[in-house]
């Protein structure tokens, strides 16, 4: 539940909302908690929010691990169950 998943900001919209790419899946998230995030930033996503800006290498490492340790109930999006 406290797991945060790396993603890349691919589109900025109004109201500090943004589209992010989570390994091929596009999600809309809020950037309210990361005022410094901009187009192209790598961020950690938790419960529909970017909670930290991270560097690209860190994002790649985290993803490798997440693939290995997160299992997901059929009806639950990974980020919510994690």
């Amino acid at each position, binding site marked *: *539940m*406290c797991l945060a998943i790396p993603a890349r900001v691919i589109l900025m919209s109004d109201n500090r909302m943004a589209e992010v790419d989570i390994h091929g899946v596009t999600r809309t998230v809020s950037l309210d*908690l990361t005022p410094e995030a901009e187009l192209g930033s790598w961020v950690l996503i*938790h419960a529909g929010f970017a*909670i930290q800006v991270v560097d690209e290498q*860190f994002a790649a490492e985290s993803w490798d691990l997440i693939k290995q340790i997160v299992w997901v109930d059929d009806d639950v*999006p990974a980020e919510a169950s994690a």
Partner: protein
Amino acid sequence: MADILSAWRDPELARHLIEQIAQAADRPMKIMEVCGTHTVAIARFGLRDVMPDNVTLLSGPGCPVCVTANRDIDFAIELSRLPGVVITTFGDMMKVPGSHSSLSREKADGRDVRIVYSPLDAVQMAAAEPDKQVVFLGVGFETTVPTIAVTIKHAMAQGLTNFSVLSVHKTVPGALEALVNDPEVAIDGFILPGHVSTIIGPEPYRFLASTYHVPGVATGFEPIDVLQGVWMLARQISEGRAEIEIAYQRGVNADGNPTARALIEEVFEPTDAEWRGIGVIPGTGLAIRPEFADFDAAKRFDVTVPEPKEIPGCQCGDVLRGVVLPFQCRLFGKGCTPEHPIGPCMVSSEGSCAAYYRYTDYGRA
């Protein structure tokens, strides 16, 4: 051990770290990983099995769903039975049993209980369905709390009168203090939670070292990260040092996320919280401040719940304190499995019982 190591990113470095840990661990050491994601990583990569005899890794209270008290679950269930109320929550919460029922059972019985991916989704539902009262059941630690704070501010900005949050959020440092003071537990060092630390930074843990002389290391989730954290702790313990160190520089800044911390502060104030297995810990809950009382489900709905009951035979509370290992529970794997969980520690994907069951052979008949 060779089998386990070969699956890791850098088996050589891992081997080296394990040797270093064995050298540093010159006495028996009990090290607790606080975070459920660490518990999963430790089980998944077989880290317990590669520890030297002197080092015992224990799982702690870091699964927010697991530590939620039956009283709070019962309250949410009562709310779901009120006409016109929609309960929204993260998926992990659905199957967690309270005294008599669970949200998923209530849903099967026709109550309106919905899983959301983000608390903002619940606000959208409230805006789209003005004849419903949408309640978000807020469970989680400092990682999650700022997202709820922002959500409440959004609902306020939109002028919504049919959205509220039942806040059973908890904060981690005070729970660690309770464990340090528990003579049954006797922890020598903590692996501190990575993503909680991303928000709060290392400062809120300093008292563990300065007041109680118990060291802590915030670390990441790779096997190598965890081993490095254990090694740093073993060194501190054998040298008689107690410091709060960060082995997760990539994910934790020295001051955490100041924007997120300010939002928590603006919307929530500390209150007492009941933790499963531990009891009431002063100041570890987060109540919604009076300025935002309109969005506080605990104030808004007049619901009383009977005295909660514990689940017969379930030792989840002791598991969360590190006193009992999951496979020491009589029901583990025999009656209690992830498919048919009896207690919360088997429900959540990061509960200790579920992690042990999925990834280890302990206690399997």
